[in-house]
């Protein structure tokens, strides 16, 4: 065994347990004769242990709902209502502005990355939450609007639905294909919850109301000059249409 047998890389690989048994023995023989290196490696080993101890608690924290929602699988391309596919196709055209990085990544055209689908999923995830339904409570409405406007890059308003008995619970920020999106939640006296999903629209196209229904949750979807909106709730088509009109009017005021 000669001195040149052991390199600095070998020493680190020894600390990280990345050596084969034969090489491990070789390094151990070296360390027996070189106490300085042995002390150094002991310190590196302690660093690894301290790092793991320091940050281990993060692994035990419950994963926030936002992150689980962000990892929600895109749905299978088939097996859904024709209405949904039409809406998805429309939504895909509407969010064409997102095509910038999509094209860069040579991402195959996949209409599932659509606003309406995500809005319905997000609706289902968050209306079930008791304590963490929203990130920012309605009591902090000014902050909520400022914050979401900043993230969306345009000033947004919270629709006023009190005339229909729905009060604002609060809101949160969601990612949708990498685009910041705001979700506002409303609740009436019976505890029925609605969500309004607002995403910046960089296209000029405006659309009329379109209705979609997926797994019992209905949504109206439309696009104005600045934003794409999805109103979602399990209140039936007629009930939801009244609210959609109110949202639309409220935003126009």
């Amino acid at each position, binding site marked *: 065994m000669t001195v040149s047998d052991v390199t600095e890389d070998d020493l680190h690989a020894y600390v990280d347990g990345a050596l084969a048994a034969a090489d491990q023995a070789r390094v151990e023989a070296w360390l027996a004769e070189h106490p300085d290196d042995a002390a150094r490696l002991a310190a590196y080993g302690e660093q690894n242990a301290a790092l793991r101890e320091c940050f281990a608690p993060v692994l035990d924290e419950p994963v926030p709902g936002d992150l689980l929602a962000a*990892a929600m699988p895109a749905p299978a391309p088939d097996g859904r209502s024709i209405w949904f596919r039409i809406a998805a196709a429309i939504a895909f055209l509407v969010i064409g502005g997102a095509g910038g990085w999509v094209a860069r*990544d040579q991402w195959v055209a996949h209409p599932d990355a659509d606003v309406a689908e995500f809005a319905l999923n997000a609706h289902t995830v968050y209306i079930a939450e008791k304590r963490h339904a929203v990130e920012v409570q309605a009591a902090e409405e000014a902050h909520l609007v400022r914050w979401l406007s900043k993230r969306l890059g345009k000033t947004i308003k919270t629709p006023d639905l009190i005339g229909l008995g729905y009060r604002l619970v609060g809101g949160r920020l969601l990612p949708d294909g990498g685009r910041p999106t705001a979700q506002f939640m409303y609740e009436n006296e019976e505890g029925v919850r609605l969500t309004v999903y607002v995403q910046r629209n960089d296209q000029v196209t405006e659309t009329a109301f379109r209705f979609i229904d997926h797994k019992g949750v209905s949504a109206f979807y439309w696009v104005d000059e600045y934003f794409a909106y999805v109103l979602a709730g399990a209140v039936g088509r007629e009930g939801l249409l009244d609210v959609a009109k109110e949202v639309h009017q409220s935003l126009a005021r």
Partner: protein
Amino acid sequence: MISKERQVIDEIPHLRRYARALGYDKTSADDLVQECLARAMGRLHAWQPTGTMRSWLFTILHNLHVNLHRVDKDVFDIYPDSYLAERKAAQADSHTGLLVRDVNAALAQISDEQRSTILLIGLEGLTYAEAATVTGVPVGTVMSRLARGREKLREIMDQDAEQTLRRAR
């Protein structure tokens, strides 16, 4: 075989831990991970398992971090000060050992490149080749960052220990 989606979800705790160790507070770390997941899900259909899901996700997270670090440190400044103060208080309350506190403080004093290399390997257990993929440099560069970073950490922690001893006398 575990689905791709499931593999992504399984990595979330590790992505969060890495982001926190890089120095982001809890809120900012989760914002970063959320952005990482949003991008990953958008590209998941096109993803081919040439490497591990972990190294792919860490690559996305790492690039987001590097971009932020480089151009816009302000982008995650979205919460009111009171919220941040509350987070800091919660962190201060947690009782951690001396060595653990030292390593955390020492981490802040080395370069971002050394820090991320050490964390990917020493904390997250990535192989040298995976760490090279994630950070976008050759393995040789990973090895030299690892060696320099570890030595720097050792110096800082030795100094800290000496000072503590001197104060105790």
